[in-house]
């Protein structure tokens, strides 16, 4: 070691902004992400405090059926005279929980299988990918219906069923990314250094494969909310007395010509959620991509 090295050792270089501070910087500098954050926070509050915020009991029926929006019922009433605003507020909890939890499970399971298949290849790849091909041959909703029929109804089983029906997309994307990344020289360099397979997958492959996976995750949230609606509509989801966005939307179909609000408002709620998650997902992608955050960090 030279003398200069010793001097440099004691020189304290300026540390880069990291972790939470950097994430906050990215979120605040991105207007769309900020919008998403605000909307999502509002929905989160509604999800937690829904029963207390709602102006009416979401299941209280009256003879004022299919009213247009008015001061007493801001979003109108449905075919059984229930207040639509209250039903949407109370429904936030189940819908958001299903949407987020489902995607989280599908992401973890799918990415794990996809990375293992792509990294190790060989018979493991064959087994995993042939199963996923099999699952691809069926529409997601059919698989979810089948799984609910096997597991039984209920919120937890619903989440498991939808996430299992969704994980194949994540596995496919992750595998594709891994196949291209593992040919990079830094993977060969990591192996030469003696890095374990697990650490190569976790530290070298996964961070570089995240961008398309995040996009897929944000898109999947909306599908998950709608899948919950379909299953609930078929009587395979939550109980009919539990209002969820999807259920409200599904029930509205029969009356859409007489009460336009019944379809529009739950639809807007789903749309806003998905849009917010998309915006936050984009910001998250920027945050994870070291090249693009250079200016905002």
């Amino acid at each position, binding site marked *: 070691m030279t003398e200069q090295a010793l001097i440099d050792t004691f020189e304290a270089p300026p540390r880069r902004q990291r972790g939470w501070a950097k994430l906050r910087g990215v979120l605040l500098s991105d207007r769309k992400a900020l919008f998403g954050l605000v909307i999502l926070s509002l929905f989160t509050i509604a999800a937690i405090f829904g029963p207390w915020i709602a102006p009416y009991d979401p299941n209280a029926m009256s003879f004022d059926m299919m009213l247009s929006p008015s001061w007493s019922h801001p979003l109108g009433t449905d075919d059984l005279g229930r207040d639509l605003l209250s039903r949407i507020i109370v429904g936030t909890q189940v819908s958001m929980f299903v949407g987020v939890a489902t995607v989280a499970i599908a992401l973890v399971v799918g990415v794990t299988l996809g990375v293992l298949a792509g990294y190790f290849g060989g018979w493991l790849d064959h087994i995993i990918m042939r199963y996923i091909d099999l699952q691809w041959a069926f529409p997601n909703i059919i698989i979810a219906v089948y799984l609910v029929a096997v597991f039984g109804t209920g919120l937890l089983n619903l989440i498991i069923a939808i996430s299992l029906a969704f994980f194949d997309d994540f596995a496919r994307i992750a595998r594709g990314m891994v196949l291209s990344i593992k040919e990079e020289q830094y993977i060969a360099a990591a192996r030469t250094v003696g890095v374990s397979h697990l*650490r190569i997958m976790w530290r070298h492959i996964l961070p570089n494969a995240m961008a398309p996976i995040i996009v897929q995750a944000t898109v999947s949230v909306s599908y998950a909310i709608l899948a919950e609606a379909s299953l609930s509509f078929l009587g395979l989801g939550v109980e009919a007395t539990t209002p969820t966005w999807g259920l409200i939307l599904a029930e509205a179909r029969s009356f859409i010509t007489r009460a336009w609000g019944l379809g529009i408002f739950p639809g807007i709620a789903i749309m806003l959620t998905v849009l917010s998650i998309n915006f936050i997902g984009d910001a998250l992608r920027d945050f994870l991509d070291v090249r693009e955050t250079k200016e905002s960090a």
Partner: protein
Amino acid sequence: MSAEDVLVELRDVRKYFPVKRGIVFDRVIGQVRAVDGVSFSIRRGETFGLVGESGCGKSTIGRLLLKLDEPTSGQIRFAGRDIAGFDAAETLAFRRRVQAVFQDPYSSLNPRMTVEEIVGEPLLVHSIEASRAGRLQRVRQLLSVCGLPARSVDSYPHEMSGGQRQRVGIARALALRPDFIVCDEAVSALDVSIQAQIVRLLQELRSEFGLTYLFIGHDLSVVRHICRRVAVMYLGRIAEIADSDILFDEGCHPYTQALLASVPVPDPEIEHRRAHQMIRGEIPSPMNPPSGCVFHPRCPLADESCRRSVPELRKAGEEHDVACPKVGPADISPAWLTDKAKADAVPGGPGRS
């Protein structure tokens, strides 16, 4: 050459890659003979060059030596032991002694890791420095040895130039204090001025840390400058091995001659006058190599016997082996090169200045 001097030894190493076809059920329809019976040894402390055109199997040899691929047959011995027989712990110990500097400074560093993480990773994985502060200090020392400022620990690879990135790659290779470094085209992707800096750095490190290099390259002037012994490869086989000066001045294999003749001379007058004995045709497919001597379809000396028998490496002098029966000590200047052309084309050469 005594046995203790040899650090790395290849014995008849072959690496065939199967070529598969089929969607559901693969079947092997052929083999790419990337490396086909290569033997040589590298002595402790020397820089051994491996040259040849792209696709001749030189990088595959590098990967085999790094234990990134397993040879199809043959033995690779490191410090007297067959590396194929290593268990997990021995492999890890082997990795501490054998490191690599890769070709592409843009793809050999993980774009999402800082320099600190990249250079510190070997120290972490081998539990040499458990604490982050200790690692950071070692990383700064390594960077400084490689001519990088200590503040670059926080940089990401994309914030650095090609030469700086290659220095980071060298620092990572040095982190474990290895004995042997495979430089796989380590300077090919860099600008010429940067190449010179990196070559000088590699030479300094060699004397400072007592390193042994396998220097894989296709730039003959760089190879001549840095290497003590050089092997010329063609289509997975060794054409000629010799002391660097002997090879570049008296290399007698027709392929070596052609390679040397293809190096441009930085003097337009000489360049214009000298005979351009261009090599004919394209490099054949390693999936279906020619019979006999693999070079015979392009060789100016080839006759019927070259089509039939595979030439063995034979002694052509002290520190000089050549795999061609047509040339050798008896006939060191091939007939197809006139004395005049030879005098202009071969001696001196570039990189000699």
